């Protein structure tokens, strides 16, 4: 779009037209912005998509509706090749994490959020879902990838391939200073 506008402006310059709306300062409302980064669920693209081969970049620059044909393939490779899990567990992980969006049920009256709460029918705490500041999303994700979370929820048979040394990074939110009032995230350090 930028290039088309520039070309158009250059052409009118050749034709000797000096005033044209859409060129120069008045053109801002016409600008078409192009997406450079996209994020919803934490540590999904980060863990599953390689930086090598541009996989992470591709997912940053496409839309959630592209995820089943793109991010889902990264999940497939990682779950089978790296984590060594069964296809049945891998299929559940793909179905839960792709498309990459945070799901929240605004008609649920829970007073806090619970990461993956909608997707798991409340197993992570409640059915509001969303993501709370204190949710240990890394450990929840590691439990799904390397642990027994999926079999425990009855979503796929246990494949006996859990790797207990990888199911928690052993850090929590105790170093944070969240606030009871808006904007809730802690003051800068």
């Amino acid at each position, binding site marked *: 779009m930028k290039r088309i506008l520039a070309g158009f402006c250059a052409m009118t310059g050749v034709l000797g037209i000096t005033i044209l709306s859409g060129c120069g300062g008045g053109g801002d409302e016409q600008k078409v912005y192009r997406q450079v*980064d996209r994020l919803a669920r934490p540590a999904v693209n980060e863990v599953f998509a390689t930086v090598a081969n541009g996989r992470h970049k591709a997912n940053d620059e496409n839309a959630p509706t592209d995820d089943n044909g793109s991010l889902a393939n990264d999940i497939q490779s990682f779950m089978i090749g790296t984590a060594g899990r069964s296809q049945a567990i891998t299929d559940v992980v793909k179905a839960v994490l792709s498309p990459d969006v945070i799901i*929240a049920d*605004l*008609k649920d009256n829970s007073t806090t959020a619970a990461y993956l709460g909608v997707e798991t029918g409340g197993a992570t705490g409640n059915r509001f879902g969303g993501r709370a500041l204190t949710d240990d999303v890394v450990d929840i994700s590691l439990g799904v990838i390397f642990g027994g979370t999926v079999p425990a929820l009855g979503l796929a048979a246990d494949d006996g391939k859990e790797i207990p040394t990888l199911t928690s*990074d052993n*850090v929590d939110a105790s170093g944070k200073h969240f606030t009871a009032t808006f904007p809730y995230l802690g003051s800068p350090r």
Partner: protein
Amino acid sequence: MKPKFTLKKTLLVLSTLAIVPMFILAKAKGSDHADTPEIAASPGSDLTDVYVFPSPTSAGNVVLAMNVHPLIATGAGGSATFDPNVLYQFKIDNTGDNVEDLVIQATFQGTGSSQKVYIAGPAKPAIMGTKSTLLSPFTTTGIINNTFSPTSNVKVFAGAREDSFFFDLEQFFTILPDRASPLTGAVIPDPNVPKAGTWRAPGVAKDFLSANGFNVLSVVVELPKSQLIGTGDGKIHVWCTTSK
């Protein structure tokens, strides 16, 4: 397997020096911090976290929060500003098809402690997907690091906050060094093959972000849930984007 000391050394420097050189600061990351070489070079467009939670202070409200610009050093939050060339968006699908029905847009003008904050939406965007155009912002403009109300029932804060993500990043990079390659520049063969088999023990493991006192820039919007539900069943699908 070639041992990789560069990142370890970098992280050691980070954790032991009170004053961290800017070039090293520009080269470290978190949940989705500095996720590709292109994004690492443009921290103002680098999304690091997204939150959706019920308002702790008002039952009918929901809070949406996005973090960008990772690794602002302790004490430097007050001088950090959003990228005035970037369009920051919350995208909300309320019909279950993972296509945005509503967007909330934040844009910024100027730099420094008086940087202006413009908010638009939630409103239906003119185009969906990876390209975007600007909605008309509310006439009430905010200033960075100050809460304001662009329209009745809506509260906005855009400015520096403590990085809310907690993660043993150092060990993650030891396990999967490919994910550090935007920072190290190293190309890792077999990028999905773990180079370590375990996380660090409790007490030894460290939340990289709080251990080093890093900050981010946050856009936090609190608004009535009813403004996002539309004609849907109450379930919303949310993601954030940055665009140039």
